[in-house]
């Protein structure tokens, strides 16, 4: 096998990076929810799916205005956030006093319910929307073409990561969230309304997932089953990175993105086995992930 062309390697890794950004958006929401609420939200992939479908819907409402795609993204992700918050407040919160298994199963019930709602409202076929006009083209990198939209996603993902990092580190809300991840009861004792905190955190998590779905809508198929498809990869990301760790999620997403991107070249038919093996190995050797804390077992 001849030595691979450096421009090809770069392009391939940029592809992996793009996918990683989507994974990061969704996984960071999942990780946030787990870190604070201690709930592994199976339905996170469903929020992603809802974001994508709503984007499709809003694009058709706003079709006449110039920036219709961006409006759609905004409305879709915020709507998804509100749906998430609503579910948390009215349903999930009632299960907190029970064993964790109940909360987990409830999120699985949500997967089933939301999945079928999507089918009922938007049908069972595949939907798609075009890319936004200003990002339709491609840039030339080292002689190869790479889509502008993907470049945008990469920068946006990094931007959001940076933005969240600033919030967590520098603002009062960030401190509260980090404290809640460490010790919930203490936080309540300090006068913070923990119930509302949970709702807000869940809402933000849902927003991130919805945003991921909204942004993926122009480049992937909006189809029933996209919720189940993505959630497994998201689980792998948070396992590799560490459940509840912010940077871990980013790292996990980057790792998985590249593994998938190059895996299909190196082990074409076995890539799919390999990612699960990776997840297993991490769980066995270092269950708290690459950047998680052991105490969070």
């Amino acid at each position, binding site marked *: 096998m001849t030595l691979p062309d450096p421009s090809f390697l770069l392009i391939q890794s940029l592809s992996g990076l793009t996918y990683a950004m989507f994974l990061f958006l969704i996984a960071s929401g999942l990780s946030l929810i787990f870190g604070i609420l201690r709930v592994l939200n199976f339905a996170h992939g469903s929020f992603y799916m809802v974001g994508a479908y709503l984007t499709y819907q809003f694009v058709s409402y706003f079709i006449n205005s110039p920036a219709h795609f961006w409006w759609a993204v905004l409305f879709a992700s915020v709507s998804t956030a509100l749906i998430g918050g609503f579910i948390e407040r009215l349903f999930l919160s009632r299960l907190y006093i029970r064993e964790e298994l109940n909360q987990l199963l409830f999120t699985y019930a949500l997967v089933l319910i939301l999945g079928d709602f999507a*089918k009922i409202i938007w049908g069972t076929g595949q939907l798609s929307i075009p890319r936004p006009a200003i990002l339709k083209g491609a840039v030339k990198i080292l002689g190869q073409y790479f889509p502008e939209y993907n470049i945008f996603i990469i920068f946006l993902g990094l931007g959001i990561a940076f933005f969240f990092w600033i919030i967590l580190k520098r603002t009062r809300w960030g401190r509260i969230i980090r404290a809640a991840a460490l010790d919930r009861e203490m936080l309540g004792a300090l006068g913070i309304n923990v119930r509302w905190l949970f709702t807000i955190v869940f809402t933000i998590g849902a927003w991130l997932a919805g945003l991921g779905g909204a942004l993926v809508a122009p480049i992937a198929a909006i189809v029933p089953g996209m919720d189940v498809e993505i959630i497994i990869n998201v*689980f792998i990301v948070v396992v590799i990175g560490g459940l509840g760790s912010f940077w871990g999620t980013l790292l996990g997403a980057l790792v998985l993105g590249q593994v998938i991107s190059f895996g299909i070249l190196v082990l074409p038919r076995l890539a799919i086995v390999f990612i699960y093996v990776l997840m297993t190995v991490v769980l066995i050797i270092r269950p708290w992930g690459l950047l998680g804390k052991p105490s969070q*077992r």
Partner: protein
Amino acid sequence: MIIILLLAVLPLSESRFYIFLGTDILIMGLFAISLNLLLGYTGLVSFGQAAYFGIGAYTCALLMKKASVAFPFAFVAAAVAGALGALIIGFFCIRLTKIYFSMLTLAFSQIVWAIVFKWNSLTGGDTGLIGINFPEHLDSSTRFYYFTLGVVVASLFIIRKMVDSPFGRILTTIRENPERTEFIGVDVKLFQLLAFMISGAFAGISGALFGIFNHSLFPDLLYWPMSAEVLIMAILGGMYSFFGPLVGAAVILYLRMLVTSYTQYWPLIMGTILALLLFFFPGGIMGFLRSQRPFNRGDR
């Protein structure tokens, strides 16, 4: 006992369909009860039981088809394979707790799925393993139904004896408080592993039955929604009751059959039932029924 009589009489209804449904319920019921050994009795939430089900199913079918092994041997091999798989996987999983435990069971189960899915030459990949025939003396649906009934009754008897024994008592103690149990000198890991293996063996048996019943096997039965479905069956029926999972299996399979003839939105129904269950009937059907009968002293 009365249930067994009723079940034994079922084939006389002359309806192929009810024999099908009955066999299906028995197989899934056994699978669900084997899961409950881990879930309800030992307190281990395993998301990967489909792995042992699938290992048992493919072992039995492959031995019969490709190696022309006689059915009784293939059948026993399925149980052994299931137990072996559980041993290996369980060994790693029990070192973790709670959510990490569950995720590792899921991860392993997905590996098994991926291997079966990709190993085309052995398992037929996603095209599946088709043409699994009834074994020689069981060559009709009715006969196979009776065979299944016999196997399931025997298996349940064995499992029942186990959970009623001191072994079973230790398992529930572990469920309640693993640290305490460790403290009083019980090797918790050993017992958890044993529970895993027994669970895996019976899952393997139900898998073997499943393969023959359907005359075909597809990797889908190893994919994680299968693990989720059997988990739901156990909880629906009542995970703190012995027969609960069987009841759960019966209800789910029956409802699914009804619902899917009218609408395609079965997942919606199942999700709603699950949600209602979690909010209003945490003990499952059996839990609910028990709570309606306050005067059950002296009954078994």
